[in-house]
């Protein structure tokens, strides 16, 4: 995995380099916009982490330039600005995800993984998902475990769908709120946990092998051990 980090905060980029290194990725660092764009245009990266405000060339300008030249590498924008309109602006410029500084590395990690696993554009969208003996059929809107049908509420279905799309990856609570509930907000209580335990009761309760797991300090993961 090749990762490009364009970030002018030396402390943060050193930290990111270390963390991505531990994930087993090759990390290139750029501390200004011009160098960053040069690297991004000339190398095939799997994912890029771009700070929004950079000396030389603005982060959003880099992304616009890359997208205009047909470069579709997933980009995660880092920003000190937490406003929703800034977020919308960043995504409109061609960013794929947006993370506000300071962030927990587990959040960044989960989002990077999600970005890289995204189906490349042009592929037929998947309509059927499998994790161990758990199946989800989008067309029939059906969920089965070991062949047994499981009745889910619409939101539970959507939640499971998102988890299955990202099977084997950590999914954070914020990611679930943004993608399953489609609201960008900060719950005071861990409401998501309660939804997860409900879903868990439906898909895992009567089976030996638990599929929906809690990743401490990070989020959840659906996987067959």
């Amino acid at each position, binding site marked *: 995995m090749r990762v490009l980090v364009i970030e002018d905060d030396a402390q943060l980029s050193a930290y990111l380099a270390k963390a991505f290194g531990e994930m087993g990725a090759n990390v290139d660092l750029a501390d200004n916009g011009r160098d960053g764009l040069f690297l991004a245009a000339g190398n095939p990266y799997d994912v890029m982490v771009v700070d929004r405000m950079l000396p030389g060339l603005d982060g959003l300008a880099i992304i616009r330039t890359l997208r205009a030249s047909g470069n579709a590498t997933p980009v995660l924008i880092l920003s000190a600005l937490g406003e*929703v*309109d800034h977020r919308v602006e960043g995504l409109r410029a061609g960013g794929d995800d947006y993370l506000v500084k300071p962030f*927990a590395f587990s959040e960044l990690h989960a989002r990077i993984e999600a970005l890289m696993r995204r189906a490349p554009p042009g592929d037929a969208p998947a309509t059927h998902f499998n994790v161990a003996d758990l199946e989800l059929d989008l067309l029939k809107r059906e969920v089965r475990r070991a062949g047994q049908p499981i009745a889910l509420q619409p939101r539970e279905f959507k939640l499971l769908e998102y988890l299955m799309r990202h099977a084997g990856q950590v999914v954070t609570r914020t990611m679930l709120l943004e993608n399953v509930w489609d609201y960008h*907000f900060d719950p005071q209580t861990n409401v998501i946990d309660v939804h997860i335990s409900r879903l868990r009761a439906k898909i895992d309760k009567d089976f030996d092998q638990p599929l929906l797991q809690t990743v401490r300090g990070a989020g959840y993961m659906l996987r067959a051990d």
Partner: protein
Amino acid sequence: MATLAPALRRLHLSSRFILTSSTFRLALLYMLLVGVSVAILLGFIYWSTAGYMARQTDATIGAEIQGLAEQYRRRGLAGLSAVIAERIARDPEGASIYLLADPSGHPIIGNLDSWPPVTPDAGGWVRFRARQAQGEGVSIEHETRAKVFRLRGDLRLLVGRDVRELAAIRHLILDAITWGLAITVGLALLGGWLMGAGIVRRLDVVNQVSREIMQGDLSRRVPSTGTGDDFDQLAENLNRMLERIEALMLSIRQVSDNIAHDLRTPLTRLRNRLELLQGAELSDEASAEVEVAIADADELLSAFNALLRIARIEAGSRRAAFAEVDPITLLQDVAELYEPLAAESLQRISVDSTSALCRLHADRDLLFQAVANLVDNAIKHSPSGGQIQLRADCTQTRVELSVTDEGPGIPPELRDKVLQRFFRIDESRAAPGHGLGLSLVQAVAQLHGAELHLEDAGPGLRVRFCLPRVAASA
């Protein structure tokens, strides 16, 4: 029509205000004082004019009777009759009235037809209408004031004066006095009203500004007229006080925001270090400790983030994210998200609305956050098995979102305080949360130009969030 209605309402309000204002009451008192003073003054004028003339008449009559009595004593009945006849002859207009009668009341001599049917008072004074024959079948009536005197031999002598003219003059003076008094009272009332209204208008401005400030717009100032009068001085002092309060509040807010901002980065770094530690080979015990430490860091971060979020919303730079929002769907989404949490305490969340179609111009995420915070509070404070009601009421001009719980409610004196940052009713601060939830709701309300009302739902708390509605064409 649209501009007339508020003007009328203002007028109505201000006229009611004038009637209840102490300034106007003072003006009324002032008018009363002026009125009474002028009445006393005019009374004195009346006494010293009309009264003087009456006294003069009485004195003349008294002197004449003394004179006639003297004549009778010296010259007897014949002499008296001669004098009376002479005096009647000297006064063809009959302005002077004379009548000498025998003890049974039959006239002996005089210019009255008969003895007047009136009883004299203690001083012998009478007042009557005298009828005088004036040639063939013609008689005239005189308004007469007269004195009755008993002569020796039980003869009765009456001497009077026609006071018709006096009465007319007195009438004239009384008329003038009455009108004068009425005009004085009218002018004093008008002056008092104008003076009161002027003062009230200026106080009204101060009150209006104070109300706006209490509603949270601390940037408002009391306007001054520039004349440097007492009201301008009041306005200046108030403004200086407000500036000081605003500066103090701003510095408190900035300190807390700066702390949140500056501590957020090292705190995140700390959290990330703990996270890296978690990945390392650790004993179960150490790993559990690290997990608790991460949870603590997360709690701190969430408080800091909430604080900064409020600060940014209050800065009011977020209107760019405004779009059309369906409040009913939004309430249903909040209810759906929180329903499992409520179900854990056997609570139920219901969503009602008055009309199916309703649109708002709002920041969807922030509005969701505000309602979510309210529902979160409602769940925390409602008893097990309680009902939490979400409502959307749409009218032509506004949309009212409300969250009602069955908890203990908030005492009226604390309703303003709970909107402050970090304020918590529970003084032990033992319950989870950081006391920022309602502050954030308040900030969101302000950003949307909405009014936030905390009310007693008997039992429970109802929070109403009243937003101006987007026009149908927009």
